[in-house]
């Protein structure tokens, strides 16, 4: 039989369709399905048929309709107009979709991903006769007032510039530079296409020794993450994954934030859209939206596009990394992506591995997290992609497959704890089961940039907390009254650490973001108090005396009472504490002398 120009729909099962006919579809090729030309992707090629996952609702599709090949894999457009924007899972612009189709998302929308009419002020950086290689910067555009967009030679182009426009206002499809490579002439515009499932190339990976600073104490001090690192936030429903991710998106010191709402709530995306334009980026005083891009596939949007949204997000992140930026990508939630894989796999009747998830779940997860890293780019700049993935374990049980497999490929584990959330200890990150494997690599940075003993102090805090955990097991059985005073002190100081340091109120103006200097001084104050009390207790002063004097409460409240821009107030606080303690000490010595 001769080859046809397209395939024919044979079977339909939700988002999965079977295609027959003689057209030789390629694996991962993008196709247009049915009369409405719904976007789909080839996910399996068999001898007699081809399986396609459709990125839109398939209601009304008929067997016998055609499936048209596009000849290329699922690609997205990379160019100016991404930042500050919101896209669906395959990079369709939701704002412009809303303009066209109103409040509800209709399917079959085919519009340009990026605005093709908008004129950008382009500064051309190359001239005729220059030789360029992949990644070289040929032009610059002020994409927002926070981000300079560097137009780069695509990774597959190399040669001599034979034509370059002057600086000027151009739309994204304007050819600005022509490059001659052998006999071929490449016409470069402000955009390039990239297949989402393929990592973008770089020169070499770098050691991860700079922290991504988030302003969240339990992260930056206790379980820090490196720029280019990977982290997972697992937790049952309502434990604070999304809020933590939002906090990172707001306050972390990345240049670009890619926020992927993967199978979660519409209102959470709306919240970002409403808040971010009004929030001020602490680094430059500009609206936070100006460095943020949102990818939204909410839980009621088509499930196959959910699977793609993760790749769309990471591809955009890599693209900005290539320009020399530190990019952080938040994926909320990777479990929904894994479940999308499971759903598609189930409809293909593949042999399931654990709990119905396909056997290739671990390899997909590892491929995704592998795309993080700090690198030297092809153009010699340095950039990073930090991945922070939320995990929503079924039943809140961390032994389930997605959490367990994710754990193999990440190096920061911020375990959210239901019982902490129930008692409104936020962020509900459990200090016993969480870990960061970056601490060692980051120690020097903290030493040089904050304080030489930053990490020593951190270690002391975590030792005290460990001791408390042991003591609390005893207290649960016999009450705290009969503990020796030194141990009561451990419990009190741990309370100060938990309530005064680990707990951080995202809704408080001072507490929502805390600079590292203040984090250090808070630790320092707590430990100084502890040291002093450890000396006073052997004099026979019971812990309750200090408690009644309010010293613990004063320290717990320092996060609110000391402003982020008034760190000198720590001296006053410490002096006042010392004064109170001096008095208590003097009183005791007096009393003792009288007794003698």
């Amino acid at each position, binding site marked *: 039989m001769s080859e046809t120009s397209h395939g024919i729909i044979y079977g339909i099962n939700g988002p999965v369709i079977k295609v027959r006919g003689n057209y030789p579809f390629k694996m991962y090729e993008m196709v247009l399905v049915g009369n409405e030309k719904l976007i789909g992707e080839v996910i399996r090629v068999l001898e007699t048929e081809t399986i396609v996952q459709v990125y839109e609702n398939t209601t009304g599709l008929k067997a016998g309709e055609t499936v048209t090949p596009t000849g290329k894999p699922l690609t997205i457009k990379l160019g100016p107009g991404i930042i500050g924007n919101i896209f669906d899972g395959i990079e369709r612009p939701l704002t412009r979709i809303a303009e066209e189709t109103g409040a509800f998302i209709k399917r079959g929308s085919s519009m340009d991903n990026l605005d093709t009419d908008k004129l950008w002020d382009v500064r051309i950086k190359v001239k005729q006769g220059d030789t360029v290689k992949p990644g070289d910067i040929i032009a610059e555009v002020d994409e927002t007032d926070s981000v300079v967009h560097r137009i780069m030679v695509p990774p597959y182009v190399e040669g001599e510039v034979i034509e370059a426009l002057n600086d000027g206002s151009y739309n994204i499809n304007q050819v600005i530079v022509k490059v001659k490579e052998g006999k071929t002439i490449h016409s470069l515009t402000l955009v390039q296409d990239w297949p989402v499932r393929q990592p973008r190339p770089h020169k070499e990976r770098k050691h991860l020794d700079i922290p991504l600073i988030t302003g969240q104490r339990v992260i930056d001090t206790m379980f820090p993450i490196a720029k280019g690192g990977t982290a997972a936030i697992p937790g049952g429903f309502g434990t604070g994954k999304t809020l933590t991710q939002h906090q990172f998106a707001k306050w972390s010191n990345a240049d670009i934030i890619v926020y992927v709402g993967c199978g979660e709530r519409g209102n959470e*995306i709306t919240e970002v*859209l409403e808040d971010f334009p009004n929030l001020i980026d602490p680094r430059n005083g500009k609206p936070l939206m100006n460095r943020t891009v949102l990818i939204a596939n909410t*839980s009621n949007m088509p499930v196959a596009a959910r699977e793609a949204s993760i790749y769309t997000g990471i591809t955009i992140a890599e693209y900005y990394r290539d320009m020399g930026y530190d990019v952080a990508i938040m994926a909320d939630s990777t479990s929904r992506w894994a479940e999308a894989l499971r759903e598609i796999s189930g409809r293909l009747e593949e042999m399931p591995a654990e709990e119905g998830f396909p056997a290739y779940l671990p390899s997909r997860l590892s491929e995704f997290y592998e795309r993080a890293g700090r690198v030297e780019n092809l153009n010699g700049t340095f950039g990073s992609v930090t991945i922070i993935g939320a995990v929503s374990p079924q039943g809140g049980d961390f032994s389930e497959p997605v959490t367990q497999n994710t754990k193999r490929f990440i190096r920061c584990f911020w375990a959210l704890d239901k019982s902490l959330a129930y008692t409104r200890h936020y962020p509900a990150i459990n200090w016993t089961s969480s870990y960061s494997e970056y601490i060692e690599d980051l120690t020097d940075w903290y030493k040089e940039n904050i304080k030489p003993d930053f990490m020593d102090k951190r270690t002391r805090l975590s030792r005290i907390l460990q001791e408390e955990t042991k003591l609390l097991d005893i207290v649960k059985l016999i009450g705290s009254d009969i503990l020796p005073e030194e141990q009561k002190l451990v419990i009190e100081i741990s309370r100060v650490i938990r309530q005064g340091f680990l707990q951080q109120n995202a809704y408080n103006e001072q507490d929502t973001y805390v600079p590292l200097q203040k984090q250090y001084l808070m630790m320092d104050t707590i430990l100084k108090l502890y040291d002093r009390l450890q000396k006073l207790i052997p004099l026979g002063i019971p812990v309750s005396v200090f408690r009644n004097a309010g010293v613990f409460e004063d320290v717990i409240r320092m996060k609110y009472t000391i402003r982020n821009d008034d760190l000198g107030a720590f001296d006053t606080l410490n002096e006042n504490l010392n004064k109170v303690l001096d008095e208590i000490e003097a009183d005791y010595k007096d009393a003792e002398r009288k007794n003698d």
Partner: protein
Amino acid sequence: MNLEYIGLKEISGPLVVIDGVKDASFEEMVEIHVGKELRLGRIIQIEGETCVVQVFEGTQGISLANTRTRLKGKPLKMPLSKEILGRILDGMGRPVDGLGEIFPEKYMDINGEPINPVKREYPRNFIQTGISSIDGLMTLIRGQKLPVFSGNGLPHNQLAVQIVRQAKIQDANEENFAIVFAAMGVKYDVAEYFKESFRKGGVLDRVVMFLNLANDPVVERIVTPRCALTAAEYLAYEKDMHVLVILTDMTSYAEALREISSSKGEIPSRKGYPGYLYSDLASIYERAGIIKGGKGSVTQIPILTMPNDDITHPIPDLTGYITEGQIVLDKDLALRGVYPPVNVLPSLSRLMKDGIGEGYTREDHPEVANQLFASYAKVQEVRALASVIGEEELSELDKKYMNFGRAFEEMFITQNFHEERDITQTLDLAWMLLGHLPKEELDRISPKTLEKYYVSPENEGRQV
């Protein structure tokens, strides 16, 4: 399109398989004539000329030979007009109250369409339910989806009725307020109870009831919440109404989904439920909300019974992952005579942060709520200790917590079915209870707020 297909290839549970079908479209409706009887079905899978059809009325009495099937050429659409208010419909939206057909103004696809997040309005308006535990600690917000996690034998129906009766929605009046009630697999007397209470409350003509009762067909149950939400969306977005949607019992709904999935031979995930249970539930719950520039809203209160009171069971678990919080009812509290038996610690309203405090309820509300949660959590610790060492052995401070805990449950959570407390009463009550604890213990409240509101019973000479 007018072809008639005689007979079937296969029957499996609520599903039938038809062969030789031409031109079928996915999710298209079909009419199946069984003798003189007409049943409706929907195509849920196509494989060449073979179609799998779920039959809404069930497959009893169907043989491979006694059917004639016709494709209807369109998906399931609901006839809608404002006349639906005050009507009682079956689980597919067909009138069962003997008041005749509904003259439709328009037909809407029951699956709805996802709201573009760009076009959503973030919900911020407080709905006062008059119930202290809810208003104070897990405030309901207009446009929110806030389910009740309950168990068999617990008074979730009463609670729902009380909420509906007392709910004060800002900007809502008799004209633009409506209730959509969907019963899925509940018993007749439960449906009657709701109807009766709507009648007593004088709101029956503002209610649309969708009834798929326990003895009604299982497949129909799948479309009941979708029909109900289609009606709600129509009233909210086309008729500018504030709509409160009660969906009960989502557990029966999910069980129906499982039954169909297993008839289809799908690979199950946890506890036999299909792998797409999350997406499926989301396609229901995400239909709550407010549209930018619109005047109406859809607020959902789904009710589900947790199998074995297990909150980690897939149904409450996946629901909690989609909804914006949950109100958890507790058997132990109910046994101790607490009504409504709201277990506040696992309960949560995620949207309350933006809908309470200054300008919404009262400026101390966020801190008070936080403190009540924290202090009541501490009560649990103290109780655990007391059960080991005995209450007498507790320290003075711990004894105060015990007292606070009791008072909190007896006075704050406990509330008469007919008692309505406005938010000021609720917050004042909270301060009175916090007075049981020494000021130093109230670490979630700023000194400024303490100054203004804290009263210890000793100072006031008041004994609680």
